[in-house]
């Protein structure tokens, strides 16, 4: 495996009034070059924090290590970090607030290109036009301002801004959540085309499990700062092991009225991360709770080759539960 990113025991705690909030608590994964790794979970599970910590955008780490192409991202001095920055880019969720309203599209896309001297000064304008073409924007629009564009077009600008730096890795933090269905499809297709063309690696953060299934090669399901299940996309979707993953998948409304889903309704909502439950963080909502669950934290174990799950219940099962 041609590994580009490795995250080891990543921890980020925030001090809170009610105690320490463990936003990310011991997350491990690695991403192969040219693939898409999906991070899914409900709001507050720590998926965005994980993404930001990988890019060194969220202050210091509480613990753990982020290796990008073998380099420890947190051991770099400012100069080294600066040479690394163009290689790791980000596309934000909200295409409205993530673009400066006072800069033209050309300036937005070209700013970092100039800053990092990626192309000679004279060629920046041409280069920006070229990038806009690739992202499906009309290059003669480069003197316009973001407010003149629709949501989908703006997300293309956000992608163009990231792509202009010729990155190897792009963190996509809910890039299509704010978009309408028809536009969502255009952006997902664009991301896939770019990946095929430039062998980009994506970390795709989303709560939309249907988009994640479509775009990701491997996924990790997070719950309260921890990964509860991880594996190749097909493994996780065809044979979800963790009761939380099963509930998540069963909760997706299916656009077919003849299929009445057997929804697994979870009780309650995500517990407060400042006061997480003892033992397995999911035990209070779990339909398969056992005596051991509130007492001991389950560890992530390989249940089948490449498919990991942190659950006491799965461990005592002879044959893993099969989801219809």
């Amino acid at each position, binding site marked *: 495996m041609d590994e580009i990113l490795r995250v080891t025991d990543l921890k980020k705690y925030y001090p809170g009034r009610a105690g320490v909030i463990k936003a990310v608590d011991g997350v491990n994964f690695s991403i192969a070059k040219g693939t898409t790794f999906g991070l899914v979970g409900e709001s507050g599970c720590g998926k965005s924090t994980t993404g930001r910590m990988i890019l060194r955008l969220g202050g210091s780490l509480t613990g753990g290590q982020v290796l990008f192409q073998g380099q420890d991202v947190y051991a770099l001095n400012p100069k080294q970090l600066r040479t690394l920055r163009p290689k790791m880019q980000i596309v934000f969720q909200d295409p409205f607030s993530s673009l400066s309203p006072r800069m033209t599209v050309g300036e937005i896309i070209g700013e970092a290109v100039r800053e990092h001297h990626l192309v000679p000064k004279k060629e920046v304008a041409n280069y920006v036009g070229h990038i806009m073409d690739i992202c499906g924007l009309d290059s003669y629009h480069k003197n316009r301002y973001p407010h003149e564009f629709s949501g989908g077009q703006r997300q293309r600008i956000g992608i163009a801004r990231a792509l202009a730096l010729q990155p190897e890795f792009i963190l996509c933090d809910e890039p299509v959540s704010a978009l*309408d*269905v028809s536009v*969502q499809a255009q952006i997902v*297709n664009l991301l896939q085309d770019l990946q095929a063309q430039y062998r980009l690696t994506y970390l795709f953060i989303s709560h939309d499990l249907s988009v994640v299934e479509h775009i990701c090669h491997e996924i990790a399901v997070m719950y309260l700062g921890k990964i509860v299940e991880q594996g190749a996309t097909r493994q996780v979707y065809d044979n979800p092991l963790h009761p939380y993953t099963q*509930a998540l998948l069963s*909760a997706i*409304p299916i656009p077919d009225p003849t299929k009445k889903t057997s*929804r697994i309704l979870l009780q309650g*909502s995500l517990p407060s991360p400042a006061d997480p439950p003892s033992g397995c963080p999911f035990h209070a909502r779990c339909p398969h709770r056992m005596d051991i669950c509130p007492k001991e934290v389950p560890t992530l174990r390989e249940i089948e080759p490449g498919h990991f799950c942190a659950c006491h219940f799965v461990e005592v099962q002879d044959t893993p539960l099969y989801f219809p």
Partner: protein
Amino acid sequence: MAYLTQMKNRENVLEIENLQVQFDTEGGIVRSVDGVSFSVPKGSVVGLVGESGCGKSVTSLSVMGLLQKPQGKITGGEIRLNPGENAYNLVNTPEKVLQKLRGDVVSMVFQEPMTALNPVISVGKQIDEVIFLHDTRYRTKEAIRSRTLELLKLVGIANPQGIYKLYPHQLSGGMRQRIMIGMAIACNPRLLIADEPTTALDVTIQAQILELLQNLKQELGCGILLITHDLGVVAGMADFVVVMYAGRVVEKGTVAEIFAQPAHPYTIALMKAKPVVGQQQDRLYAIGGKVPNPVELPPHCYFKDRCSHAFEPCAGDYPCEISLSPTHTVSCYKEAGNG
């Protein structure tokens, strides 16, 4: 009284006929809703589907009489509401009467429960207020309070006494939406309008809220107008589906008809564009182009420029409604031969 009228069908709780809503903006007049007609039968769920800006929220706000004035105004059509005896035409019902109907006969659940609730009043008190204003059966403080607790229990809140005293910011998104629903059903409305009630919620919480709405429909027997952009939610909840595009209804029918035989290319494209869990496809179907500018809508079918089926007749006038079955209608020239 000019605002009293007759329902076309007494089994309907809401009938909207040829509704026209305009907004005066700097760029010109925007016809947000242009000739929308559909009805909500008693005790059924009608799903109103479409993308942002298609006029689905404006339609629901017109029913509630909550259009932003003076920019927004209803310029034509009728909205008939059936509270039991007399039917009201909400288009010309005076504000005073409307106030009585709102909350009582028709009520609304908004998308964002955080902004819809008052942040400085405890949630229990906010429900109290609805009962105090609308339900004459509960006159004393104690009676109102116990009714609120009853409602909190009804919307699935395990600890009503404790929650009563809390403020919106102390509750999770799902809990806030439960409070909103409790407030909306406080007076057993005949019609509940739910405007994207689960869009701001996580998928497991969405499942809880949809389940709750489903149960309440059974229990209270009210009609629900469910506004959403998620076809999955519609498939699971609705009995009838109305698909809107650029201010017009392009297709409507029973949920079985729309999902089994979608006729309008826009409906078909919407269904294809959304990836479905368990169905693998190499490439998502993307609708090219974009929604036409609402200030200068084309003289032909609004979807023509994005439509993969467009042919000569499509350059003509906007297609009229064609019946494919007694319940299924579509506005598209492609179906003109089949109607």
